[in-house]
């Protein structure tokens, strides 16, 4: 029996197991998936949990529910991948593989920034990229009396790069609805050149920051957190004071990638941008946040990758050349507060465009434009995630590659 081994049962790993199972000959291939954690989180929900929009139970389920019974599901810690021997060491056993799919994701690494995990951590400094962080932040916000709220990105790349901005927008609505917006000063701090780095987006969306009275601090690369003065400090000693810091710490791939010598400085695995084969080993494929491909680290990207990777695994099994197909396609809802959202659709080379989605001229969703429809789309997506996406059921009319029908490319920046 040949072994197809998947490491990680998050969004990408679970999808791969569900896509591949019906396509493989059960007498020839055994699928095994390894993940030490029992809970599967709906990570986009971590954005809503702090604002009491979602409850705890809406963002987590038992992971086992999503793995089919013909798949060998092992809940153990992964210790090391040994590509030369086609082996993976777990805490108390060693698995052999013929094909390995790495879907170990990314995680926050607050220890990378001096002073982040200090006396103020989880008191006045929070993350919302973990379930625990998001929940602790919700409890903090429920009783917070106001002051300087600083939303801060440590360094790129991060999972779901628009989430911090959505957090700022939702915070504006949240404090307004609580009748305390005048007591809160919201500042958005980024290491990039601004909240919007692409001309189409800065042109279409710059009004959002003004409308919501969100201050902007750009080109800020944090050096340390001063816990005594409650300031974040950059390498040029620029200081930004906070009463409540919501930070997105450095995002890194799993430690097992570093231990196995498979990653870059951030433990992300060098991966072919279009085939998703690892660059170093032909029988290792990588999907989702674990790759170093310059696409967004987001569930929608993993979803589109999964379709290409499924085809490529089957091609590889039969000794055929791989499809150079994945185009970096991402399709993301962006909450803008006040029960509205934007929808963006883009890939490696094409900036987010205007137009309708998924049907040209009809929509019903509007790209790069605020609408209530898009907000409903984002909320409906939780159901789609649990009931379709994870199970590998195709979302109707949404193609793995970016479609150019019904989209407008003539947006010019104000700077012209």
């Amino acid at each position, binding site marked *: 029996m040949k072994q197809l081994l998947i490491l990680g049962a998050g969004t990408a790993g679970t999808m791969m197991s569900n896509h591949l199972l019906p396509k493989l000959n059960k007498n020839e291939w055994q699928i095994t998936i390894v993940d030490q954690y029992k809970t599967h989180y709906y990570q986009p929900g971590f954005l809503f949990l702090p604002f009491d929009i979602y409850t705890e139970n809406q963002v987590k389920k038992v992971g086992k529910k999503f793995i089919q019974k013909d798949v060998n599901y092992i809940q153990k810690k992964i210790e090391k991948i040994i590509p030369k021997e086609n082996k993976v060491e777990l805490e108390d056993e060693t698995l052999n593989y013929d094909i390995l799919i790495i879907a170990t994701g990314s995680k926050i690494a607050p220890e990378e920034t001096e002073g982040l995990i200090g006396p103020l951590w989880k008191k006045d400094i929070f993350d919302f990229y973990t379930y625990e962080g998001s929940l602790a932040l919700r409890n903090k916000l429920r009783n917070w009396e106001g002051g300087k709220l600083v939303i801060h990105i440590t360094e*790129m790349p991060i999972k779901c790069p628009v989430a911090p901005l959505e957090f700022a927008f939702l915070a504006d609505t949240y404090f307004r609805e609580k009748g305390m917006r005048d007591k809160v000063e919201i500042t958005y701090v980024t290491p990039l*050149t601004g909240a*919007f*780095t692409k001309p189409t987006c800065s042109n279409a*969306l710059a009004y959002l920051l003004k409308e919501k009275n969100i201050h902007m601090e750009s080109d800020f690369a944090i050096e340390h957190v001063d816990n005594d003065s409650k300031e974040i400090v950059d*390498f*040029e000693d620029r200081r930004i004071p906070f009463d409540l810091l919501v930070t997105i710490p450095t995002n890194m791939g799993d430690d097992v990638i570093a231990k196995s010598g498979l990653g*870059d400085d951030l433990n992300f695995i060098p991966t072919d941008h279009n085939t998703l084969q690892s660059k170093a080993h032909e029988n290792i494929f990588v999907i989702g946040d674990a790759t170093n491909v310059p696409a967004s680290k987001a569930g929608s990207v993993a979803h589109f990758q999964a379709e290409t990777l499924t085809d490529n695994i089957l091609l590889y099994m039969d000794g055929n050349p791989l499809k150079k197909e994945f185009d970096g396609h991402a399709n993301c809802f962006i909450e803008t507060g006040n029960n509205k959202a934007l929808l963006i659709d883009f890939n490696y080379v094409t900036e987010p465009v205007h137009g309708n989605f998924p049907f040209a001229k009809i929509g019903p969703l509007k790209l790069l434009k605020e609408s209530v429809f898009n907000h409903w789309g984002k909320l409906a997506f939780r159901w789609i995630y649990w009931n379709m996406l994870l199970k590998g059921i195709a979302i109707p009319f949404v193609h793995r590659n970016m479609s150019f029908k019904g989209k407008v490319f003539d947006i010019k920046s104000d700077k012209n």
Partner: protein
Amino acid sequence: MSVKTIAGVEVNVSEEGYLENMSQWNEEIAKEIASELGIELTPKHFELINYLRKKTADKEALTIRSVGKSGIVDVKGLYELFPKGPLKFSSKIAGIPKPTSCI
């Protein structure tokens, strides 16, 4: 996209003045862009610029962290070479695209 003459050479630049095609770059262009930004280029600058260009040609994402581990400068040193906006100014001078996020 527009065409601009920098150091006597016609190059394609983005709306924000970043070169659209890194192969149109040369050291004289780098010096002229740098002087517009108030930076005088030293051999150390060029060592870093060449590193950034190589990484970009290899399609590797550039981060402040990776530059800090390049062995050429640490992050503090990067700020000293390109004050106020290390990645954006160094990218502009190196003739490579501006570091962006997805929007």
